[in-house]
Structures are given as structure tokens and as C-alpha cells.
């Protein structure tokens, strides 16, 4: 079993790259707060989705279960971003 032939390895690599992009790129002052926050939480939702599908193996789960779990990161991101945009500016 070569680690490089495993799908989870490529998923892990993509998650690491996305983490570095959001932590040390998108969160710097180069971007407006709105772009940074929306980008951070959409990327977080995508990362959670891939953890669910490939690490938790929900890709092979019964469709209703998969759909409920896949909805969670996007519902959470929508709630967080909704409150963020509604909050008064500092």
C-alpha cells in the first residue's frame, strides 16, 4: 500500500494547503474583512465536507445520511456569516 496511491493522502494534502492559505494568506490585512471572513468560512465548510466524505467515509453512506451531514458545514457557515454581516462595524 503506497501512501501516495491513497485518495485520503491527496485529500489531506489539499486540506493542509487550504489551511495554510486561510491562516497565513487570507487572514492577513491584504484583503478586506468581508472577503477574508467569507473566504475563511466557505473554505472551512469545504474542508469539513471533505473530512466527512473521505476521512469519515460518508461518500459510501446511505444518501439521506450523507445529505444531512453534508448540509451541516454549510448551515453552520451560513449562520456565522449571517450574524457577522448583521453585526455593527467596529
Amino acid at each position: 500500500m503506497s501512501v501516495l496511491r491513497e485518495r485520503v493522502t491527496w485529500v489531506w494534502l489539499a486540506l493542509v494547503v487550504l489551511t495554510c492559505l486561510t491562516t497565513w494568506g487570507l487572514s492577513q490585512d491584504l484583503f478586506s474583512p468581508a472577503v477574508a471572513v467569507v473566504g475563511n468560512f466557505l473554505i472551512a465548510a469545504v474542508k469539513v465536507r471533505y473530512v466527512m466524505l473521505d476521512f469519515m467515509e460518508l461518500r459510501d453512506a446511505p444518501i439521506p445520511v450523507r445529505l444531512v451531514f453534508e448540509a451541516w458545514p454549510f448551515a453552520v457557515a451560513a449562520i456565522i456569516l449571517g450574524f457577522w454581516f448583521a453585526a455593527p462595524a467596529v
Partner: protein
Amino acid sequence: MGVAASEGVKPKRLPGVEGVWVFIGADSVIFGILFLTFMQDRFKNPALFEASRHTLNMNLGGIDTLILLTSSWSVALAVQAMKRDQIDREPRLLLGGAVTGLMFMVSKSIEYFQKFAHGITPGTNPFYMWYFTLTGIHLAHVLLGTSLLTYLWIRSRRGTYDHLHKAVPESVASFWHLVDLLWIVLFPLLYLMRAA
């Protein structure tokens, strides 16, 4: 052709025992409610939350994320090894998961001690109350997951797990990935969310 087509379709299944998925679902809902309540409190005083957020160590938080992602990857590889009866590969992959879990706990302890050394406690203000509560509940999950991975590592050294005996490790792995994905949301929520 019908037979060939049906042979190519993987049966739909959830890894591990069903009970662990009920727990994962319930835990996800609870954390969702906690995130919502955090945002409600932030809505009342975004300036305080923004000023307090700046005192958190973003680099350490990012490294914590990389540690947990690597831990999840190692455990996912261990489950793949079990499915293929590659019993000799399992112990070091499970040990990798447990050691990285321990690394996360050490990192979080350093962060807590830095806060306490600066006189910051959960009572300092609402942001820090949320910071210690959310990271504390998550840390309890990490402690439980690391303990379970250590147990799996010890058992795997005796060749306990293979493609027929993987319900327990699959359940623990699913829980461990939950710990990972909760941190993926917690990290930007507490450390990266700039104010408008």
C-alpha cells in the same frame, strides 16, 4: 451486463457501529448551537470580541489545525490498512494518530498557560469565557479520542484488527474525524474572524 454493473456498485454503509453516528450527529447539533450562541454574544459587542481575538496566537492555532488534519489522515490510513488486512502497518499509523493527538493537547496547554500568565481567565470577559468553554469542550474530545487511539494501538500490536474485525476502530476513527472537523470551524471562529 446487469451483473457486471451491480458488481461495480459499492454497497451503501456507515463505518463502525450505528450508535457512534447518533453521537456524532447529536454532538454536531450541540456544537452548531454553541457556534450560534457565540455569534449572538459577539453581535452585542463586536469591538470587545475583536480586541480580545487579537491576543490569541493565530500561528499556534494554525499549527494545531495542521496537527489534527495529519492525525486524521494517519487514522484514515490505518482503517484502509485494516480493510486490506495489512496488519503490520496498523500499529504505527494508529500510534501516529495518538501522538499527534498528544501534540495538540501539549500545544493547547501551552496556549492556556500563556493566557493565565497574562492574567486572562474565563471570567475576564465574554470572549474569553467562550474561548475557554469552546476550546475546553473540544480539548475534552481530544483527550477522549487520544485515549481511544492509544487503546487501539495497543490492541493492534496483537493483530486484533482486520477486514472482519474493524467495527471498533472504525467507530473510534469516525469520532476522531469529528474532533478534527469541529476544530476546522472553531479555529476561524475564534482566531481568524476579523470585525467589519
